[in-house]
């Protein structure tokens, strides 16, 4: 797809040097393709810098505070002690890669439970042992030209994950990726992990990402994932972000789905001072399906941004999009949902819903659905709502002896309950439900 979905207009090049200067001398690239991408990323980011609210795609999310941070690349985290690692497993072990401040930690990772026909490895190992694979996919779906933060990720491309599930292979165990940020006092430590994910024809896998902080230091995590779903392949991709409220979490996921393939994405946002999750799912083959959904719960002065693009490029595609958010105190959330139906994408069925629950007079949601439909035989719907807790329901519960805070918790939990049902796998749903319950517990 050569049509640009995005422009870098309004980005601010004066913000670039602070990010790029510390990268001088970090040039030990393993592969020419990596060296090339880094050079292009640096040149591009130097030219454009951070996006600003002048760019329509960034209208509701201001990176001014990020620009003020004292940015430094995350240091050597090879020996950083890690307290505890989250998992969606109730028992036993399964495949898991762990990253601390963006760097792979072999000592904490395991490939246990992976069937043959699956490659799961860190970026450096992949460059060394599977150079052709990296060269074929790196930068293919996420363009440094269009998106300043993809350029920045490319500029400091150092580590990440490479997953390839071979044709016809079904991975029963969820594959877990755990990103722990520790950082250090006095600076905002940055890391730019990259994920290259490839499901070959008929492959099936479930991927779970955990993003957590250890300690209270501010960090910048700027993730890019490029996900290729082959013909008839299915990936369920679930992510929970629980970083500390000093940190910046930026993520760009670009998926391309071939004929009959399925890409499902669920993101639960609970943490970070500022987070933005971009999900671009392109149905590049016929009869492809994508289902992108999630929940966001923010309070204090948190800011959460969900920006999705569903690109129906071929006929008979189905997309379903459901987000629900709870916003308290002075927190803000933004939802931007773009659905494109290209001229040849007849018989497209697209559905989008965003519902926000505002718990305080100072809470804010900005929602922008955007449908660009160029085919004539399509079904597309979208809906956005913002509301408050139902006073009648609250009084009803209290009139039965349930105290106000418990009653509010019940109603907030109820509001979010059905969005968690969008997660197909019960153990993941249960684990995410526990994170939501934990959030509600802290709320009291």
């Amino acid at each position, binding site marked *: 797809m050569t049509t640009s979905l995005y422009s870098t207009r309004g980005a601010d090049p004066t913000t670039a040097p602070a990010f790029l200067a510390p990268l001088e001398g970090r040039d030990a690239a393993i592969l020419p393709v990596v060296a090339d991408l880094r050079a292009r990323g640096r040149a591009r980011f130097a030219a454009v810098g951070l996006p600003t609210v002048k760019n329509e795609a960034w209208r509701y999310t201001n990176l001014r505070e990020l620009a003020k941070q004292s940015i430094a690349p995350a240091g050597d985290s090879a020996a950083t002690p890690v307290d505890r690692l989250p998992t969606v497993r109730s028992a036993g072990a399964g495949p898991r890669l762990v990253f601390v401040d963006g760097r792979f930690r072999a000592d904490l990772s395991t490939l246990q439970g992976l069937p043959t026909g699956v490659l799961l490895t860190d970026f450096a190992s992949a460059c060394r042992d599977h150079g052709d694979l990296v060269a074929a996919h790196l930068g293919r779906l996420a363009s440094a030209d269009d998106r300043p933060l993809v350029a920045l990720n490319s500029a400091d491309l150092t580590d990440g994950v490479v997953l390839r599930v071979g044709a016809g292979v079904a991975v029963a165990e969820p594959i877990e990726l755990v990103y722990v940020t520790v950082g250090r006092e006095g600076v905002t430590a940055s890391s730019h992990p990259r994920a290259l994910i490839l499901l070959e024809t008929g492959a099936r896998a479930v991927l779970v990402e955990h993003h957590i902080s250890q300690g209270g230091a501010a960090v910048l995590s700027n993730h890019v994932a490029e996900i290729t779903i082959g013909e008839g392949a299915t990936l369920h991709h679930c992510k929970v972000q629980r970083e500390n409220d000093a940190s910046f979490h930026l993520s760009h996921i670009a998926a391309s789905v071939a004929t009959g393939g399925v890409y499902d994405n669920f993101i639960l946002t609970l943490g970070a001072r500022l987070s933005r999750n971009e999900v671009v799912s392109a149905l590049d083959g016929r009869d492809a399906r994508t289902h992108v959904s999630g929940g966001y719960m923010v309070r204090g002065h948190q800011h959460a941004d969900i920006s999705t693009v569903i690109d129906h490029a071929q006929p008979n595609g189905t997309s379903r999009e459901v987000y629900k958010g709870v916003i308290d105190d002075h927190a803000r959330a933004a939802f931007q949902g773009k659905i494109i139906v290209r001229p040849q994408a007849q018989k497209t069925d697209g559905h989008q819903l965003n519902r926000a629950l505002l718990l305080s007079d100072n809470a804010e949601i900005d929602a922008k659905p955007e449908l660009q439909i160029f085919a004539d035989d399509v079904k597309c719907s979208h809906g956005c709502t913002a509301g408050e807790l139902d006073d009648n329901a609250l009084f009803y519960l209290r009139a039965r002896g349930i105290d106000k805070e418990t009653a509010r918790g019940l*109603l907030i*939990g109820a509001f979010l309950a*059905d969005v968690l049902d969008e997660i197909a796998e019960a153990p993941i749903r249960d684990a995410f439900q526990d994170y939501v319950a934990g959030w509600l517990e802290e709320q009291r």
Partner: protein
Amino acid sequence: MIEIKNLHAKVDGKDILKGVDLTIRPGEVHAIMGPNGAGKSTLSYVLAGRDGYEVTDGSVTYYGKDLLAMEPEERAAEGVFLAFQYPVEIPGVANTTFLKTAINATRKHRGEKELDAMQFLKLLREKTKALGMSDEMLKRAVNVGFSGGEKKRNETLQMAVLEPKFAILDETDSGLDIDALKIVAEGVNALRSPERSMLVITHYQRLLDYIVPDYVHVLAAGRVVKSGGKDLALELEKNGYRDFGVDEAA
């Protein structure tokens, strides 16, 4: 004992209750009848503690305590129960979760041990059977998709489970056909006891054929204008509220 004295209340800046006096002793069932707009529902909400109902004068003493100083949940835990005229639908909260949370909140307040899942289910089975309610109604979200009769049965179930000292039944007959009314009335009658007081609020005499009160009061224009025995209800049925300066036909 519940003593309502000279109770005045405002809603949206408008005076609705203008000096209600009423004393209800343990075990007694009092009916409040009155035309539309007399302040019947306002009285029930003021007693239950709903926001937006401003008490401007008077007092309510509940077993020696100042009822009006308590939060709604404290009143409930102390044994006040309002059966709603329009029970609220709460999508996403299962009826059982709701009942269990409510009963354990009340038990905790009373210094009793909370019920575990098994004890709770046993209690619930017992109570639902008596009311002819299905397990399926318990699994569903609170009142969501319930018929009018099912909602009122659900209110009665809550009352049976929470065992209040003072139950206020606000227009329990509204929206019920005669069969549903009988079932609900039977459920309520089964809960009559020497320790439990009830205040039955209704527009029509019909309900009082099934829940027979000890006393009947007429509420008009924010005041109790007449009190009597159960025969007063029959009189009202015959003559309407005209004698109290209200012409409902108008």
